[in-house]
């Protein structure tokens, strides 16, 4: 059972490595969206650092979302998804491997790039650290919940926009807690409560989302 899990994880990572431009697209999207705001709002550092938590988190949310379509689409077209459905291993577990690979490829780079952009927004050092922690705890939830949306819209016409409509309302708690953590540390308060809630959201979705995604895949592929 562990073997199948590891094989899928390795395979998805290898595929992502072979198509490096896909990863780069997500990163550049994050970079561009977060660079547009200073151009729109103005370069005052006071304003920028006060909007930074929200802007960076919304940019991370959108970057995570645009890559969702790729999560199952390729496997769906070449038929390997059907093989996963009829495999003896539990589908939820295999799906979890795919979600983990997706997060490693699309979520983790955003987490690592975020402090650099935070510097552009004149965030103080401890707020930068909280930003990285909040993204590290929060972005797995985005991949997990997003997988449900990606599975539901598999092969549906206009699925790109539909995923946004389905998934973004469900992302709201993560956005609130994540941006709240950074804002709290900016105001000299402890970010502990927000980070704990983010971790709680991650754990809850870690348990429930693979099951829901597996059910959604069975509905979509049958």
């Amino acid at each position, binding site marked *: 059972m562990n073997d199948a899990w590891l094989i899928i994880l390795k395979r998805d990572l290898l595929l992502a490595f072979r198509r490096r431009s896909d990863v780069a697209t997500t990163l550049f999207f994050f970079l561009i969206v977060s660079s547009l705001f200073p151009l729109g709002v103005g370069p005052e550092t006071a304003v920028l650092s006060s909007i930074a938590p929200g802007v960076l988190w919304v940019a991370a949310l959108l970057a995570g979302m645009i890559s969702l379509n790729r999560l199952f689409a390729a496997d769906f077209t070449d038929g390997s998804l059907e093989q996963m459905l009829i495999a003896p291993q539990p589908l939820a577990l295999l799906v979890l491997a795919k979600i983990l690979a997706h997060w490693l490829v699309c979520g983790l780079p955003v987490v690592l790039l975020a402090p650099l952009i935070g510097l552009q927004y004149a965030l103080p050092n401890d707020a930068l650290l909280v930003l990285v922690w909040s993204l590290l705890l929060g972005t797995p939830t985005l991949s997990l919940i997003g997988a449900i949306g990606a599975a539901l819209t598999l092969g549906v016409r206009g699925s790109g926009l539909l995923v946004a409509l389905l998934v973004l*309302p469900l992302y709201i*708690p993560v956005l609130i807690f994540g941006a709240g953590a950074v804002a709290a540390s900016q105001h000299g308060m402890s970010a502990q409560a927000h980070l704990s809630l983010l971790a709680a959201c991650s754990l809850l979705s870690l348990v429930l989302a693979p099951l829901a995604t597996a059910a959604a895949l069975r*509905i979509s592929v049958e």
Partner: protein
Amino acid sequence: MKINWFKYSSPQTFYPLAEKMIPWFAWLAAILAVAGLYISFVMAPTDFQQGEAYRIIFVHVPAAWMSMVIYIVMAAWAGLGLALNARLSAMMAQALAPTGAIFTLLALVTGSLWGKPMWGAWWVWDARLTSELILLFLYLGFIALQSSIDDPRRADRAGALLALVGVVNVPIIYFSVKWWNTLHQGSSINMGAAPKMAATMLLGMLLMALAFWMYTVAVALMRVRCIMLERERSADWVKALSLGAKS
């Protein structure tokens, strides 16, 4: 005596039953609405703080209640349809969604109409307004997903799963918005401190809520009859029905 619990779970038997039930619920809705409107506009006293403008809450609060109740009922039907693989349950969920979305929109619009004279702003990022807005997004997502899948069975089951995921998330969203709001808002509105409601006001509000409820049932039944005909158009009973209507 043995009761066949599933007698009305097939569209063929439910279609005529729904036809008989609709007038009852529609008339109940009309009578309750007339009584509720009379109480709320004629009998209820003018509020000494808010003047006459407060009377919009007789529409606003019941609409907000119904928007939440309908989502839960819709998810319950959807879950039932998913668990028992019952066509009719999924059709009921599909029939309820537009009414729920309309009540959510009504609650938002009446809320902002009330907010302008009371708070001096059409929109404030109050926890209740925000979570009502997110509820509207959830309804729209459900409707959009169902309408973009061509195969009705897949649309039913995908929509049902989305409704269940939404129901798990609704409390999380509500509390996150509430905490976000208390963190950001210093002191503008405190609805909890509002003066106690007079008994006639409460009665008017309850009557209006019941009227909305009966209206929802009537409209959902009308809509589910249309869905049944559309989905089962190749079934024998629909053909017999249309032949009977022609002759």
